[in-house]
């Protein structure tokens, strides 16, 4: 028998260590220490009801356990085999206790559709993919449906593009299918450029065939015989696995001529990105594939009308494609039943930042940010206070406490001033200065703007300069007004999605953290203590014993004072490196 105790940070904070100790003692008292092991585990993702103790092999799930409960668990459950009723979870809707964690619907917040094979199969072996019904969706559409019927299934499923925009996938296919041409193309956008997002990489590395299969299905639907995957050169492993997968699929006849003995032929090639975020935008991506500068161009014409080499082209992102085979196999109704009214299915998020369980998760649309961050994500690192979560990367915005219970879907995120984006979710805590965060994103946009249109090329630079002034304490209240006006104009006038969304981090922080901006501008203070120019290191004369450690370690000799007498920092010389504070053994130095 095993007693599993959640050792996730959340539960640890509520004394799971002590519970473990107590359990061990109680077991020893009953001389059961050899038969029953106490194991600390990773986070159960149910931190709200922690600490959690799970008993194996019967899967009993105890919640909100205290050290005092240890004796009872051992005595009743371990020795006598009787469950401790009062610690069992009560289903809030049914008001019945649930004993087996396998039956706890809420416990399994995640649902894996796009990631269905990631971590299950060997991505370099097509057999394992086939063993999990791989390529059956392709076989099914080729032999049982005509292209329009297939498109109708995708349309009916409610699948929307996972790359950021959320355009209905079925409709996109339909438009491309209706533009007649001698040659059309299916393009997979694997230029995952959002800093802090790695969903597509994981899918390509873990389940490349699902993307190949879906591209072939799309090719059948729109009448294309060629597929191209535009992938970041920074993803060597994903490239390698895609190459292996393409070779294997060709060998099996699942790519190439007359697939499944039908008239349909389809093959896939790789194209490499070369480090330009803007190439995630579909017109820029197409230019890049043509060997040109990855500048975006005005739409219309849309790629579905005139795309790669001027031919009708359908561009979808990796995750969108990965959803297609299960939809075909399990039916549109099944997919439609998952998610919210207007956003169907699941979404993969890359959880990162100041969160305990950094990782890749896939959740049904409609889950709340709170569930994602505090349950699946295990809460904020080091027990700090949650401040904001940034979704949608440089195009998105920062959401706060007040948005925690908003169900996540395309439209709600936009309404809240952010966007789904490709699925990066960066969690920030009380130590993060929101002005600096906005500046960080603008720095990114300035560097990644293609430079073609003036609002994005110059406007973002000006936004960055304004934010920089504010973080240096040089900003004025007028600057805040300018920030807002400029942001709106950039959004309103920029040529492509990059510029149309790049001010979002500014606008959302202005909306949600206006006070923090004002603190920088009026009080010349950074409430999170992040903005160096606004910091002051001060020596408390009461606490300073005059050991001279600070003065000796100051790289710019800004500290003076006699031995055994309180020292002082010359603020005009200080470069705010913090070395003095690190060296002070008497906690005499603080930041003001």
């Amino acid at each position, binding site marked *: 028998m*095993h007693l*599993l105790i*959640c*050792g996730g940070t959340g539960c640890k904070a509520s004394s799971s260590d002590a519970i473990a100790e107590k359990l061990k003692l109680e077991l020893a008292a009953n001389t059961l220490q050899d038969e029953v*092991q106490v*194991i600390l*585990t*990773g986070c*159960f*993702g149910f931190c709200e009801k922690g600490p959690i103790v799970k008993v*194996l092999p019967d899967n009993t799930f105890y919640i909100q356990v205290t050290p005092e409960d240890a004796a009872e668990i051992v005595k009743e459950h371990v020795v006598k085999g009787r469950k401790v009723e009062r610690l069992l979870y009560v289903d809030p809707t049914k008001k019945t206790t649930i004993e087996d964690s396998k039956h706890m619907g809420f416990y*399994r*917040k*995640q*649902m*894996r*559709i796009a990631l*269905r*094979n*990631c*971590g*299950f*199969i*060997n*991505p*370099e072996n097509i*057999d*394992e993919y*086939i*063993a999990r019904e*791989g*390529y*059956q969706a392709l*076989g*099914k559409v*080729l*032999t049982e449906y005509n292209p329009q019927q297939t498109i109708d299934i995708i349309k009916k499923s409610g699948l929307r593009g996972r790359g950021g925009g959320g355009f209905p996938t079925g409709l996109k296919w339909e438009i491309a299918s209706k533009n007649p041409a001698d040659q059309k193309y299916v393009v997979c956008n694997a230029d995952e450029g959002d800093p802090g997002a*790695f969903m597509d*990489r*994981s*899918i390509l*590395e*873990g*389940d490349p065939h699902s993307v190949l299969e879906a591209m072939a299905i799309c090719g059948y639907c729109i009448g294309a015989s060629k597929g191209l995957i535009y992938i970041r050169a920074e993803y060597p*492993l994903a490239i390698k696995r895609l190459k292996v997968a393409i070779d294997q699929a060709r*060998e*099996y*006849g699942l790519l190439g001529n007359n697939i*499944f003995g039908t008239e349909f032929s389809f093959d896939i090639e790789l194209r490499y990105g070369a480090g330009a975020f803007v190439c995630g935008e579909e017109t820029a991506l197409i230019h890049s594939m043509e060997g040109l500068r990855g500048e975006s161009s005005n739409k219309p014409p849309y790629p579905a009308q005139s795309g790669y080499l001027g031919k009708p082209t359908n561009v979808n992102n990796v995750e969108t494609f990965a959803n297609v085979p*299960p939809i075909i196999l*399990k039916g549109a109704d*099944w997919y439609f039943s998952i998610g919210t009214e207007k956003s169907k299915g699941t979404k993969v998020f890359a959880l990162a930042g100041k969160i*305990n*369980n*950094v*990782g*890749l*998760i*896939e959740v049904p649309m409609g889950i709340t940010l709170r569930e994602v961050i505090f349950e*699946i994500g295990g809460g904020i690192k080091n027990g700090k206070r949650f401040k904001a979560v940034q979704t949608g990367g440089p195009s998105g915005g920062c959401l706060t406490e007040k948005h925690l219970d908003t169900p996540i879907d395309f439209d709600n995120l936009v309404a809240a001033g952010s966007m789904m984006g490709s699925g990066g979710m960066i969690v920030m805590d009380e130590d993060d200065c929101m002005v600096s965060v906005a500046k960080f994103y603008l720095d990114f946009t300035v560097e990644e703007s293609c430079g073609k249109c003036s609002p994005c090329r110059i406007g973002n630079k000006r936004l960055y300069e304004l934010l920089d002034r504010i973080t240096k304490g040089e900003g004025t209240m007028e600057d805040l007004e300018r920030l807002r006006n400029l942001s709106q104009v950039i959004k309103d006038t920029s040529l492509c999605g990059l510029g149309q969304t790049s001010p979002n981090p500014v606008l959302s922080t202005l909306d949600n953290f206006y006070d923090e901006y004002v603190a920088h501008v009026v009080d010349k203070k950074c409430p999170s203590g992040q903005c160096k120019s606004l910091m002051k290191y001060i020596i408390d004369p009461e606490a300073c014993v005059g050991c001279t450690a600070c003065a000796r370690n100051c790289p710019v000799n800004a500290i003076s004072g006699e031995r055994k007498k309180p020292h002082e920092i010359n603020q005009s010389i200080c470069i705010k490196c913090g070395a003095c504070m690190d060296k002070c053994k008497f906690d005499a130095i603080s930041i003001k």
Partner: protein
Amino acid sequence: MTKVKSLADLKKMKETLQAKIDLREKGEAAENLVQIKVAMATCGIASGAKNVMDFLLEELEKRGINAVVTQTGCMGYCYAEPTIEVKLPNADPVVFGYVDTKKADEIIEKYIKNGELVDGIIPVNYESIDNK
């Protein structure tokens, strides 16, 4: 390998492959085998999954344990990389996080040999579409 010529071919293939994968190459019933998957995506490899995989291959062989070690993609627990999944005969798979060679050694000695769990288990917290 013969080419897939029809959907029926593919379905047949799926059945045999599934059986074959269960059997693995050693031709033994799956129930008798220890199956280990190592998450080998970029983050896993960056945190040392390759070493762990090599270690497992070598040590299991040395210690005479009949096991199959394969690579797989990202399991999603990036915070706990490297992660491995161990499936003992007749047991549910268990995922271990923060696996270095030392931990791998512990897993072999305690869990694989004796069925004793060790610290660092990551509870599976998602629903897979197969159950639906």
